[in-house]
Structure formats: C-alpha cells, structure tokens
C-alpha cells in the first residue's frame, strides 16, 4: 500500500512537471464549449471532431507562427445551467479564446461569465439577435443572425406564393426570436398568420398540436425549432395523412432529421441554412471536406459544426496576424482588420457588434433519397 502511494505521488509530480514544461514553450490555449451530451449531442460531437482536426493540423504545421495550440473541451450538455458551470471551469484554465456554443439560450448563459473574465468568445450556432446587442466587446459569432434569417424566410415564403402561414416555435430563445421576427415581417407584407404557438421540445407525441394546426388550414407550416422535433412533426404529419408543405429554420439542418422522419415523410421538406462546405467551391472548403472524410470516414453532419471550424480558423488567423494571445487584441483584429477571410462557409468579415456580415442564407430541399439539395 505504502509503495503504491509512493508511486502515485511520484507520478503526479511527473505529470505536474510535464504540464509546466509545455507551459514554457509558447502555446495558446483555446477553449471549446459544445453539447457533447443532451439532445444536441450529435452537433457537439461533430464540433469537437472538426475543431480537434483543425487544431491537429495547425500543430503539425509547426503551430500558428510557431505558437502551439492547446485545445480544452468542455461539455455544456445543451443546457444553460450546465453551460454556466462549463464556462466557469473554462475561465479557470487560462484560455485566450473560447469557441462555442450551439444553442442561443445556452450561449447566453455563458456570455457574461466569459465577459467578466475578459475572454474572447466566438459562438458558432447561436443566432438569437440580442446576443450581440448587449455590447459585449469580446463576443462574436461565425453564424448569421435571426433577423437575417427571418428576412430570408419571409422572402422565401412570399416567393413560393403562400398566403396563409402557420408559425410554430419551441419557446427557446432562438426559435422564439426567429418566429417573432418572421411574424412581424410577414404581417407587414400583408400575409395572414393563421397560427402562432409553441410546442414543448423533447416530447414524443405532437398529434394534439398537429390536429389543432390542421384545423387552422394553413398553406404552409413554418417551424423555427430544432431537428429532433421537426423530424417527429414530419413523421406524425404524414401518419395523419396531412400533406401541407413545411419550411424549417436553420436548426433543422441535420441529417438526423431524415433518420427520424423517414425518407418518405421528409421528402419535399424545405429549410433555410448557410451553405454547407459541399456546396462551396473554395479550395479551403474542398480541402476541409477531403481531410474530414479521411479522418472520420464520413462527411460532417451539419453546417453548425463547420461554423465551429470557422470560429477556430478566424481565431488562428488573428493569432497569426497579430502574434498576440490576448483576448482584446484578437477581438480588435477580428472586428476591424479581418476582411473577406476565406472560410469553410464562405467569406467571413465581422462588424463592430461582432456579427458576421454578408448574405449567407440559402434554401435547401430534401429529395426522395433524403439528400439536402441546394435550391437555386
């Protein structure tokens, strides 16, 4: 027993020394906060895989201008409470910047924690408008905002000629924000909103909601929530024999949607989303896709995880250009000096608020084989 304790002590001392060793070489520590568990776990796992792959590539190439990258991953569980804990843990780990996270309400719970510790946060899937309206100097995001998506949604619904529109959200910050935005725009265009309500995410049976929706006789159903619920709705809608067209927000851009709904029920479903790398023609996007397939044997799941990759790439670019590892310098560079950086999801520039600028959204449609097809 005594010997074992002795070995343990020796080992821990060695580990400590190793840790100090790497501390002396020049490194930059970057945090990644993502939902590795919970209902958005598949998004989080992809985020982690993508960022890990890009970090490994940076380090193999000798680091960013000789600065090695050390990635620290924390699980936020897709839950605001857990995210606050994860953020608190990350702030104690001496990180220069943090990437993440996916859901807006989850990001919101962590925003102030990073702000108080002066850590640059680059959110990846959090599109709620108010996140960047708070005037936090060190917050930015690689995804577009809901008001832009709301605008594209209203335009798309108008272009497809729908008059009576039903809007369904799920009461999360993101889904409600997008639903409110689209509702206001559609109303001002003289469209009739025949239904506006929220479902409870995580349930299995949405028949009561669908029955009520059906009785309002909409031309189209616009659902602003996430893919697990969208899949269930598509499936139960088909079982009811109701074939109203359905348009979804960008949170339904996930291949699991088709797995849940089944190809037959998912066919014809449309959603808005930033373009996936497969639809982009830049060398960066192509190289990324080849590398990812080589590393993990399949294409990346959804665009949100790829946006985490872009978050890492802009941070790396900022470190490379400024040679700094301080949050304020990195943020200043990204907001003012980074222009049309060739990202994995198109050109990236940020405005003073930290929002990504430019026209990003495209319309996708699910075909009979369950593939997401970019609409012209």
């Amino acid at each position, binding site marked *: 027993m005594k010997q074992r304790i002795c070995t343990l002590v020796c080992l821990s001392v060695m580990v400590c020394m190793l840790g100090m060793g790497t501390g002396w070489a020049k490194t930059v520590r970057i945090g990644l906060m993502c939902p590795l568990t919970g209902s958005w776990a598949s998004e989080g796992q992809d985020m982690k895989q993508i960022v890990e792959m890009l970090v490994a590539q940076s380090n193999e190439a000798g680091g960013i201008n000789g600065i090695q990258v050390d990635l620290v991953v924390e699980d936020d569980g897709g839950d605001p409470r857990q995210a606050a804990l994860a953020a608190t843990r990350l702030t104690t780990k001496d990180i220069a910047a943090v990437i993440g996270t996916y859901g807006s309400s989850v990001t919101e719970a962590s925003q102030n924690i990073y702000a108080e510790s002066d850590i640059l946060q680059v959110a990846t899937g959090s599109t709620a408008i108010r996140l960047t309206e708070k005037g936090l100097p060190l917050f930015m995001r690689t995804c577009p905002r809901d008001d832009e998506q709301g605008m594209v949604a209203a335009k798309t619904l108008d272009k497809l000629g729908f008059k009576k529109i039903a809007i369904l959200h799920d009461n999360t910050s993101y889904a409600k924000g997008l639903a409110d935005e689209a509702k206001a725009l559609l109303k001002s265009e003289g469209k009739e909103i025949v239904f506006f309500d929220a479902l*409870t995410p995580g349930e299995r049976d949405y028949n009561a909601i669908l029955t009520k929706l059906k009785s309002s006789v909409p031309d189209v159903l616009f659902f602003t929530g996430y893919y697990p619920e969208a899949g269930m709705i598509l499936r139960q809608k088909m079982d*009811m024999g109701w074939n109203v067209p359905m348009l979804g927000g960008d949170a339904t851009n996930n291949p699991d949607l088709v797995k849940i709904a089944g190809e037959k029920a998912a066919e014809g479903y449309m959603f808005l989303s930033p373009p996936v790398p497969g639809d982009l023609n830049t060398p960066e996007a192509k190289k990324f896709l080849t590398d990812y397939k080589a590393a993990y044997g399949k294409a990346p799941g959804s665009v949100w995880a790829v946006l985490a990759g872009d978050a890492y790439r802009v941070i790396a670019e900022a470190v490379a250009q400024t040679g700094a590892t301080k949050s304020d310098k990195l943020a200043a560079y990204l907001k003012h000096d980074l222009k049309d950086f060739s990202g994995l999801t198109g050109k990236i520039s940020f405005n003073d608020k930290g929002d990504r600028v430019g026209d990003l959204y495209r319309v996708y449609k699910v075909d009979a084989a369950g593939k997401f097809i970019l609409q012209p």
Partner: protein
Amino acid sequence: MEQFFQQLTNGLAVGGIYALIALGYTMVYGVLKLINFAHGDLFSIGAYLGLTLLLSMGLFDKIGALASVLLLVVMVMVLVAIIGALLERVAYKPLRQSHRLTAVVSALGASIFFQNAIMAIYGPGLLVYPHDLLPRIAVNIFGVDIPLMRIVMFLASVVLMAALYFFIQKTKIGTAIRAVAIDQGAARLMGINVDRVIMLVFCIGPALGGSAGLMVGLYYGQINFNMGWMYGLKAFTAAILGGIGNIPGAMLGGLLLGVIEAMGAAYISIAWKDALSFGVLILILIARPTGLLGERVAEKV
C-alpha cells in the same frame, strides 16, 4: 366536434402510456412508501433494449410483424423486470430499515446511474427505430381518422392494466401484495414472505414501464437516453393525480392527464399546456389531498 374527438383520441393515446408508467410508481409507493425515481429510466431502458433486440435478431423478416412485436414485448418485459429486481436488491433493500429520505436519495442516484449508463453504452445522440415496421393505416371511426397503431397501443395498455388489476385483486399473490401494502409486520406474521413480495413488485412495475418504453419506441421511432425524465415526471404526476398507491387511480390519472394535455393544447394554448395540466393537479390536490381515488387507503397497493 370532430376536432374534439380527434383530440380526445390523441389524449387517450398519450395517457395510456402515462398510465402504464404511473403503475410502476404507484405500486412501489404502495408497498414501500418510496418514490422510485429510477422508474422513468427503466422506461428508457425498455425502449433501448427493444431496439437492440429488434436489430440484432432481425425478427421482422423471420416471423412477421405481429408475432415479432408480441415476442419483443415479452422479452423486454422479462429483461426490464430483472433489472428492476436487481435495482431493488442493490439500491433499496440495504436501506429498508433506514430513514425514508435515504431511500429517496438512493433512488435519485440510481436514476442518474441508469441515465449515464445508457448514454455510455448507446451514445449521447438520438437513436431511431427502423421505419415501416408497423402498418401505417388509419381507421375511420365516427368521422375521426385514427391511426390503427394508436388504437392497438391504447388497447395494449388497457389490457396490461386490466391484467394487473385482476392479478392484484383475484390471485393469492395479489392478496399478499395488498397485505404487505397495508402492514408489513402483520403480513410477515401471517406467513407472507415480505422480501419476495417486494421483489415481485419491483418486477411488475419495471416490466410495465419497460413495455411502455418499447411501445413509444415502436410507434414514435425516436429514442434518446434522457427520454425517461419527461415521461417519468408526467407519469409521477399522473400517479399523484389518481391517488398514489392506488392502482385504478394510476390508470385514471394517466388517462386524465393525457386528455387534459390534449384539450389544453387544443382549446387554450399549446405553449401553456404543461402549466395547465400541473395547474389542474394543484387544484385537485387542494380539493382532494389524497388524489382522485386516494380515499380507499385500505385497498392500496
């Protein structure tokens, strides 16, 4: 009017599942005065085991849909019953003589253990039952289209509940369970093996919960490791609504909760339906603190 009946069937289908799970809560409470918080996770285990058995044995190709569903139900019920019995042996039996709160904490711990065990084994993402296993036909009854599988699911839960009711009321073992529920000491003096009765209760409740999990998986398709939490919470509410410790109460409470939810969604607001159903629960508990059927304390199990 048509919408009313449609919503009624929606509510009954959901309520049937709540009732099946609620039975597990109520039976355990009846004999041990313990809220088995791990029950919702036994429900998830049922759904996951069902998927594993389904995929590994390829039953649907070999013996047809009906026979394979029946076989699957039996296998899942047996397996989840074994897990339930093990749970009792490991987490509750050693604490039988200690304070009631200790057992509740142990139950919460068991729940977290099961949830994380499922996550560790099957992964954190959602899993999907294969599509088109079951015929997707709708039956038209009095102008209301009801998917055939919902009727089958509802009937299956009613049959299981009725079987349990007669088992408890008419058989010798059932009488023993009722006796233990009333007074463990006196039951032991009458020659009833109390430990075995409790073990049996921990087999029946989880078996029913597991079968509910399988039904949810087969019908709704999508399962994830924390699905038991939401269903468990609702079923627990249903058990209290009907009068915890009372078997017909759990059935009534489950069906009623399902219908209140559907009606609340239909006629008031979907976003408010949970607030509404819990509001109804509060009102009923103020008027009848023992729940709807909670009065017949002497018969509780």
